[in-house]
């Protein structure tokens, strides 16, 4: 685990693992650690840890077996943005959002978005999830 690097004055942490469910505990532990250090309240820490787990589990299901799971945490004042991405199993792979897990993810995060990139010109297709979580309860 590298230390946070500074981009545009922001703390950014990136974790890259094989896209396997067995390594998601490592990623959610990082999420939990960052939220705690960013003074998130205890519920928000728990929610972010669970949201990152859901997002990563969804992506691993859709990933090419040889893919990397790349998870980037942008730690801002009062909130953390997470951008997770894998190389898709197929060019037309679409993340399923009609699941219990996806509804839980939507509930846990303040905002969540699916990102598809069909690739081309030598780039492989990717699927990703972006989610935002604030440090404490915000009205939704």
């Amino acid at each position, binding site marked *: 685990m590298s230390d946070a690097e500074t981009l545009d004055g922001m703390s950014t942490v990136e974790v890259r693992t094989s896209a396997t*469910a067995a390594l998601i*505990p490592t990623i*959610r532990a990082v999420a939990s650690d960052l939220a705690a250090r960013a003074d998130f309240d205890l519920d928000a820490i728990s929610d972010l840890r669970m949201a990152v787990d859901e997002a990563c589990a969804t992506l691993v299901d859709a990933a090419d077996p040889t893919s990397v799971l790349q998870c980037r945490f942008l730690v801002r004042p009062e909130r953390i943005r997470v951008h997770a991405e894998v190389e898709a199993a197929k060019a037309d792979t679409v993340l399923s959002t009609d699941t219990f897990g996806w509804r839980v993810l939507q509930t846990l995060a303040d905002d969540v978005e699916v990102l598809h990139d069909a690739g081309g010109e030598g780039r492989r297709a990717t699927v990703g999830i972006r989610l935002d979580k604030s440090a404490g309860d915000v009205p939704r």
Partner: protein
Amino acid sequence: MSDAAAPDPFGTGLPLDTQVSRPRPGTVLLAVDGEIDTLTAARLQAGLDEAVDASQADGSGVVVDLSGVTFLASSGLAVLIGGARRLADLGSRLRLVAASRAVTRPLQVTGADALFDIHDDVASAVAEATGAGASAGDKQAAPGSRPSHTAAMPPGVAPPPGEVGR
């Protein structure tokens, strides 16, 4: 130490221990320790199936002690909800011992807590399960209708029947 037969030390996920016991007549207790996620949920499912099967022999109450659980993902919630539905069909409710935030927060934020009888400690859960087991028929299981715990429930997060256990 040589261990050439184990190619991937993380392959099966984190440890999740489940143990079924009968702390007293009329109650089956499933104790769970570890992190429940997409990889380990199957072990929770196996333990819960064993506990519910054992309870059916004599109409015992079922208590799942989650005191030792340090993470609970939606995959684990789905297993617990499936167990609650199975017991509801038998006219009973699933009792959970959930004291730590790692368990209570996921239950609360998804609204799933309305589907269970939630206790702070094993003793009170076992006492109530044993009492209810003798009169299992007179307790109408009505998921979603309990007034307590549901104030923070976002509507519609708990899955409809048939969606869990996928």
